[in-house]
């Protein structure tokens, strides 16, 4: 029963995804499509954090580092290669490599949760301050100037292996949405695989997993690297939807946002963080326009309230609520049936008498 529900929910997620993929560009104006593309790129970031945190137990407070590295690597590679096809591949690889190197030091040093969280956050913050200071003309990689706090103008994605044919923003939306869907189903597959289940067992109990003969350092490193690659993919899409990548992707506010998406969406699910990112993207841009309440103030309160009151996040809480209601209805029904049966038995007894 549990299994069939999982399959059902996967199918419905796939259908909703396809509806958005084909429906959104038809029904929305260009501006909305572009901002939806941005939201989707952030959702990919949220997904990557949801994967490593929810299924690998890796508390990474600086997942935006790999997102930003992906965006920057794409911009630099696209400028140097004069096309986007190789740049996308290169950027994903660079983000994954960054995660692998950092992960090696952290996991093979057996850093605990808290240390890991703080180190990853610090990496992001230092990237922020370093890249902000690269505004001079001497800071360039190949022909791409890093541009300090102004960032880099990102050349748009072109048709595969044809650098003269750029994609229009609507088409970038298709690419981003397909990327999200692919990344999502990749993550689902990964969590169902033997690898993913070992990662879950590490989250549950590190010592036991190790005593079964699994090298937990290696598993965590792989998980973290995959997470870094997916975050990097998100960064590429983000850079394309905005048309520019700046050091702000590494700042404290964005690092916090990524955590908040996963917290409110729900740890231990993959769709939760995606929802979290989409909801918060529209909510914060709405609040930003209203200028009634400061966004930091609002996000801070949201984070505190969720940690104290809804620690599981929205999606798991809703599922639980649904299950409880359903089981209550079922028990009510079976109780009624029992009562009926009990009554008829009483009659039989009377007849025997």
């Amino acid at each position: 029963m549990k299994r069939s529900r999982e399959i059902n929910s996967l199918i419905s997620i796939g259908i909703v995804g396809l509806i958005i993929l084909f429906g959104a560009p038809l029904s929305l104006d260009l501006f909305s499509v572009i901002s939806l593309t941005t939201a989707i790129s952030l959702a990919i970031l949220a997904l990557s954090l949801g994967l490593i945190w929810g299924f690998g137990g890796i508390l990474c407070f600086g997942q935006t580092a790999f997102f930003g590295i992906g965006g920057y690597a794409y911009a630099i590679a696209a400028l140097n290669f004069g096309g986007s096809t190789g740049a996308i591949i290169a950027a994903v690889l660079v983000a994954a490599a960054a995660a692998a190197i950092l992960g090696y030091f952290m996991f093979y040093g057996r850093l605990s949760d808290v240390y890991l969280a703080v180190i990853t956050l610090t990496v992001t913050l230092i990237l922020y301050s370093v890249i902000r200071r690269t505004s001079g003309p001497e800071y360039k990689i190949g022909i791409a100037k890093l541009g300090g706090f102004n960032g880099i103008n990102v050349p748009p994605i072109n048709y595969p292996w044809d650098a003269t044919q750029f994609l229009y923003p609507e088409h970038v939306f298709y690419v981003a949405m397909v990327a999200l869907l692919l990344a999502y189903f990749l993550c689902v597959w990964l969590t169902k695989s033997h690898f993913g289940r070992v990662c879950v067992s590490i989250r549950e109990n590190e010592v036991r997993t190790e005593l079964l003969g699994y090298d937990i350092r290696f598993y965590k490193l792989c998980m973290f690297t995959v997470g870094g690659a997916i975050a990097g993919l998100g960064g590429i899409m983000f850079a394309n939807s905005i048309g520019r990548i700046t050091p702000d992707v590494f700042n404290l506010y964005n690092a916090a946002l990524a955590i908040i998406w996963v917290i409110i969406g729900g740890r231990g699910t993959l769709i939760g963080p995606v929802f979290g990112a989409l909801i918060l993207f529209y909510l914060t841009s709405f609040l930003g326009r209203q200028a009634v309440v400061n966004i930091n103030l609002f996000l801070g309160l949201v984070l505190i309230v969720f940690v104290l009151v809804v620690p599981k996040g929205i999606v798991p809480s809703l599922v639980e609520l649904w299950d409880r209601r359903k089981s209550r209805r079922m028990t009510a029904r079976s109780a009624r049936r029992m009562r009926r049966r009990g009554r008829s038995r009483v009659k039989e007894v009377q007849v025997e008498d």
Partner: protein
Amino acid sequence: MDLFAALALQIIYGIANLVLISIGLAVIFGMMRVINLAHGEFLMLGGYTVIVATNNGVNIWIAMFIFAPLIVGIIGLIVEWCLIRFLYGRMVDTLLATWGLSLFFIGLITTIFGAQTATTISPPFGAITIGDYSSSGYELFLIFIAILAVALVYLLFRYTKLGLVARGTMQGADMAASLGVSTQRVYSTTFGIGAALSGLAGGLLAPITGVLPTIGAIYIGKAFITVISGGTAILAGTASASILLGAVNGIVAFVVGPTMGEVALLLLAIVLLRLMPQGITGRFFKRSL
């Protein structure tokens, strides 16, 4: 020779700066094994306290040494009472909640004072010169204060009853509790003291850095790596990590440039933690304070 003296002074100031910005965090981490992600905002609040107080005619020394630690210390106590005490033993949740708190304070201060730099104050000392090089007298003063702060924390934990109880709780909270120590009270006091020290540091640094609602972000990276590289021994950890990281940062910054100094600091800390996952004091000076 003058160059060497000036460089040495610069490095010592760098170390003192690390001590100042991380000692409040270290006290809380050492005692409660909690990393307070709102630490940067405690520093920021210290800075705002000094600026608001001096703008309202309070003497700058009183603002720095009394108002800043007192007000931020009280805020710390309130935070502990409203939030942290619900989360003891849940390290990850504490991290998340204090991060929420950090955002909350940034938002609150932005709402009250605006997102731009508040009126700055000038350092109460002029420059001093070493041969051809000039150095800020205020930086020398901060070096002195950093040493004083370390001494103060040492005396507090070594020779007062509070310190004894606190050290007992550090060694084993359960044992201390069974001897009738209220760990709850120890923790809230610790949190207050940690916040007060952060407020003091924030106030002292305000004349140099100015204040912004988001200024906490520039401190916390350095403070975090200092404290976790140091490990859980409050003073030995902070001191050893500050000296090591501060020296490397200073030398690299001098040779290559300030940006690379920060990168070197981070890389050194990561390599250090690969070799000593429990921090420097997890390997050496285990029993020290």
